[in-house]
């Protein structure tokens, strides 16, 4: 279990402050939804928590050693097949059968061996989510994971994510309050600094 405590956290890009003196507790074992207007620093906050950026001041206390992340962009290796993109992250720690079953849950069973460049935008998004779920993690970060999916798929994918993340620490960024409801998440609203 990994609680995340943010104390007096500040981050700016040049003269532009993105996060100012933020204090926040993210509970372990539950899903926390971060909501707020565009430009309020949600993605920056996720990147700070993931250790991809350093804060200007303040501290982040986290027990999470292994972090899995669905970025706003798909970030897939386009020349490689769907299953290879999962292997990129998990190596040989997960057997092919389990990967195939996971991909089938995302309705990607027919395209497992296809190169990612041949997939639709919605399929690529689901591969990116499946890749994050296939990894071993203490903390799962989802930055607008359902962006670009149609309503029917959104419902289905949310159910799959929910099933796979029961009892796990998840931070979920969305603009859609219904996603937070379906995920049964604790909601934190951020405001622009």
């Amino acid at each position: 279990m990994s609680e995340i405590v943010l104390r007096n956290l500040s981050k700016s890009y040049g003269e532009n402050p993105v996060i100012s003196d933020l204090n926040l507790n993210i509970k372990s074992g539950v899903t926390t939804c971060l909501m707020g207007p565009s430009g309020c620093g949600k993605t920056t906050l996720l990147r700070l928590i993931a250790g991809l950026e350093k804060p200007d001041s303040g501290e982040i206390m986290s027990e999470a050693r292994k972090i899995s992340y669905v970025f706003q962009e798909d970030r897939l290796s386009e020349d490689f097949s769907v299953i290879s993109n999962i292997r990129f992250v998990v190596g040989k720690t997960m057997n092919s059968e389990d990967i195939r079953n996971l991909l089938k849950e995302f309705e990607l069973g027919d395209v497992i061996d296809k190169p990612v460049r041949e997939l639709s935008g919605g399929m690529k998004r689901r591969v990116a989510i499946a890749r994050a779920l296939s990894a071993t993690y203490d903390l799962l970060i989802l930055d607008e994971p359902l962006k670009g999916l149609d309503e029917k798929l959104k419902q289905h994918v949310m159910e799959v994510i929910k099933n796979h993340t029961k009892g796990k620490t998840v931070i979920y960024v969305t603009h859609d309050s219904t996603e937070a409801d379906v995920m049964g998440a604790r909601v934190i609203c951020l405001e622009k600094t």
Partner: protein
Amino acid sequence: MNKKVIYKSISVLIFIAIWEVLSIIVGEDFLLASPYQVAKRLVRLPFESGFMMTSAFSLGRIFFGFLLAFVLGTVLAVLASRFHAIEYLLWPYVNVIKTVPVASFIILSLIWFSYERLTIFIAFLIAFPAIYSNVLQGMKNADSQLLEVASLYHVPFGRKMKYVYLPSVKPFLLSSCNVAVGMAWKAGVAAEVIGIVKGSIGEKLYEAKIYFQNADLLAWTIVIIGLSVISEKLFVSLLKFGIRRIERT
């Protein structure tokens, strides 16, 4: 037949027509043989004793030099992209090799090496900077977002090479090989001519020059072009096949 083939064929026909006209104007076979005379010589050449040996001699050495450049250039570029010290240490050498005229290297090599190694060394020297610089550029152009994913999941270097760097290096590597094989042939044969390397195509060109056998000179030149194109296409096809195999595993 597609337009590309038609235009290329027209271009070749125009070249042959100009050549024929020039050879008629010059009127001396030893100065400029006609396309017909060269074609006749070219048809006979493969049946002459020593043709296969001569071709294999030059092909083997030039291609071995290129292969050395391919392996060393790729390995050093990968290392240079990881350790900047290696890139900075190699920078002066690569730039000197790029700018110094190939004739200077050939003459220096004639002092340093045996005739047999001359072709290998010169082919290596000419192909190396092209492959090294291109592979390094490809490594530097790797998708930074994918590299961030790799660092987040602590992906080992071998796997990063396959999934992040290979897609980025692939176009650079293929285009550099396309160019470098041809360059290795040009420089390799030049070295053979200057060094009068026994048993080589370069020696045949030299003999054709001193005995005023213009048809021989041009026929051997066509053989060089043929061998260069075949070795380039073969190597690049094999490389593409190898990369596809890696992508599918």
